[in-house]
């Protein structure tokens, strides 16, 4: 006991010393706002998603988009800059609630871009909804998220329920496959999507398999696909598994069409699968980059690479919130602002329905050709 007391005294002194320096170490490293304008609320927007750890890729692509939007805004509003507050959940639903609470307690945060994944969304969104803090997800595609009655929930991309039927349609009408094999990765995203495709394709599905995330050897799945005689394979999952899967399939001499969704729309898929990636069909509820060349150029100038999966969605989500700040909205009034929003973004027309889903959802088909992902038009 005495140790605790002894310990407490110098701690208090240290705290006072810290306090004298002007910061408590308890607040974030926000640069002091310079503007003295009355309208300037010294606002922040939050970026909620995996920024470190094994799932960080996606989060960083989104964050890049958000940063680009912030740069645009701050260039236009040099007296009243908005800063970004990162809530790095590592994609882990266990960490998400405490981070959400942190964001809620920081009254300067007027809106959140994210949460990036569906799992962490389920853990964090109830708290946001309770606090009335707007959250626009650029990447969580689970359809059920919109069904929870969260008034603060918005999604700037089509959910799996819009993409799945489009993928099925493409396989049926364009690929004209008669025997389709469907594999999912047991993830919320992959399985959800694959189940919709299975349902829509009905009897043309000749076989099913489920792999696990982080699996690298697909010997048994490859045997199942080749033995089924399928001429097309739909894979619901992400690029780390898609690359070795198609590689091992091609090594085993399978010649059919490989169809995947937006989780695989990623340059690393092509880099890793190389020749095996050629001809892969990728569906994505995202507008081809050539539709928004300015965004692409700006992104490339800042980050020295092409915009990646969900960078554009990140940019759009942040832009909506920044427009709200420019319009003088605060946390309480932001919800209605977003609800009424209707402007073109870099990925699509940004307008939401009553559930918070974006209304203008187009699913595009892409193809891997010559080591590049090229658009082959909208799936109608």
């Amino acid at each position: 006991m005495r140790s605790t007391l002894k310990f407490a005294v110098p701690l208090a002194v240290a705290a006072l010393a810290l306090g004298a320096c002007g910061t408590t170490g308890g607040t974030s490293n926000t640069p002091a706002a310079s503007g003295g304008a009355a309208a300037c609320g010294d606002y922040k927007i939050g970026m909620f998603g995996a920024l470190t750890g094994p799932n960080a890729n996606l989060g960083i692509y989104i964050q890049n988009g958000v940063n680009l939007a912030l740069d645009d805004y701050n260039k236009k509003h040099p007296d009243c800059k908005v800063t970004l507050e990162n809530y790095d959940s590592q994609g882990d639903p266990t960490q998400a609630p405490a981070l959400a609470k942190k964001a809620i307690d920081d009254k300067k945060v007027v809106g959140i871009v994210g949460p990036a994944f569906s799992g962490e969304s389920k853990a964090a969104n109830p708290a946001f909804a309770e606090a009335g803090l707007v959250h626009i997800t650029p990447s969580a595609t689970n359809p059920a998220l919109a069904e929870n009655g969260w008034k603060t929930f918005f999604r700037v991309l089509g959910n799996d329920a819009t993409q799945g039927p489009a993928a099925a349609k493409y396989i049926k009408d364009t690929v004209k496959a008669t025997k389709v094999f469907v594999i999912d990765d047991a993830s919320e995203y992959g399985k959800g999507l694959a189940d919709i495709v299975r349902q829509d394709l009905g009897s043309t599905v000749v076989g099913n398999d489920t792999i696990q995330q982080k699996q690298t050897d697909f010997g048994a799945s490859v045997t199942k696909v080749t033995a089924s005689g399928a001429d097309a394979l739909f894979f619901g999952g992400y690029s780390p598994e898609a690359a070795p899967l198609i590689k091992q399939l091609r090594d085993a001499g399978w010649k059919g069409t490989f169809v995947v969704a937006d989780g695989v729309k990623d340059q690393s898929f092509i880099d890793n699968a190389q020749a095996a990636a050629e001809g892969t069909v990728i569906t994505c509820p995202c507008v081809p980059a050539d539709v928004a060349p300015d965004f692409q150029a700006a992104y490339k100038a800042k980050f020295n690479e092409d915009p990646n999966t969900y960078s554009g969605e990140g940019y759009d989500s942040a832009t909506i919130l920044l427009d709200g700040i420019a319009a003088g909205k605060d946390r309480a009034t932001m919800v209605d602002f977003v609800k009424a929003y209707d402007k073109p973004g870099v990925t699509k027309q940004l307008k939401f329905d009553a559930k918070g889903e974006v209304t203008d959802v187009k699913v595009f088909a892409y193809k891997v050709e010559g080591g590049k992902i090229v658009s082959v038009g909208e799936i109608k």
Partner: protein
Amino acid sequence: MTTTTNVTQKKKDRPNLNERIADLPLPIKVVLWILFALFLFALPLLNIPFITTPDSDFGGVLFTVSTYVLVALGLNIVVGYAGLLDLGYVGFYAVGAYTVGVLSSQHGSLPWLWCVPVAIAVAMVSGILLGAPTLRVRGDYLAIVTLGFGEIVRLTLVNSQWLGGAQGISNIPRPPGIELFEVPSIDWSTGVPVVDLGTTTTFLKFGISDFIPYYWLALVVIALVLVFDILVKNSRVGRAWEATREDEDAAELMGVPTFRFKLLAFALGAAIGGLSGALFAGKSGFINPQSFELLLSILFLAAVVVGGQGNRWGVILGAIVVSYFPERFREFADFRVLVFGLALMLLAIFRPQGLLPPRRTLRAKRADARQHVLEEGEAGA
């Protein structure tokens, strides 16, 4: 029993802290304990600079820390007392959480409080089911068997739609609360502590985003488990565990039914793991298999070993280190895990007995040192 070795006599002139506390009169000790408990309860409201996590909600972090503490106490029975290396402890944690999830949301609508005893029971039974056939394999084999168990549990959760699959289980009810009064927090932003009436916590409202009441609940549960731990450890049961850990064959030949006691340790450990899982489910309202990865088992084990296996205060400290530091030092961002790994290595090298070694090793060391001195003395003479 009082110790009357020359060690204590030699140290009489400068007694260490533990001994000084032990020498205090009982009423003062009780008062000190109460003050300490109050401090723990008030911790998330005090917002003490430097201790409070800057980048995540302190109440939420404290809750996470307290689940780790609970888990570490449970695992300590298995690893520290009975000497069984368990690398799949997260399995029981998951069983507890999912039992609550299934009964209260997925396939039923029981209130949380009813689910908790069931969760404990189911976890305990799963511990017995795993332990009964496998506790006969020894040492490191047990490690891989339990690791396998943890993975089997996780993969079953991922691949079984009945258990919600990868989507997990949402809308798990919260613990019942009574809203009595508001507790203000302390604000340090001006440098001096000021009572902040704007930021308050409702006493025992188990809400969606205020985690402080959950932390209080967890503290109470920890206190209960601690009392249980102390009572059981200081009995025939605790001695039987220790004897089994020290020398299984000799223990058996001294009349200890070692298998039965190992199984008991396993079951009790599992039950406590299940209890913390149930707490976690009640607090987060949503669970999915992602929260029960293999890595967590390893962190749990690290908590026990880093703290000092076999010493309950040590493993509590270990659990705090393992769960609090990564949250406190979020500013390391991407380098967090790297730094954590380095810290584990350094701790292993410089505190091989753990942060708070169990009494037995401490005393053994002291006695060894004394013997060393004696030998040197003889050699010199």
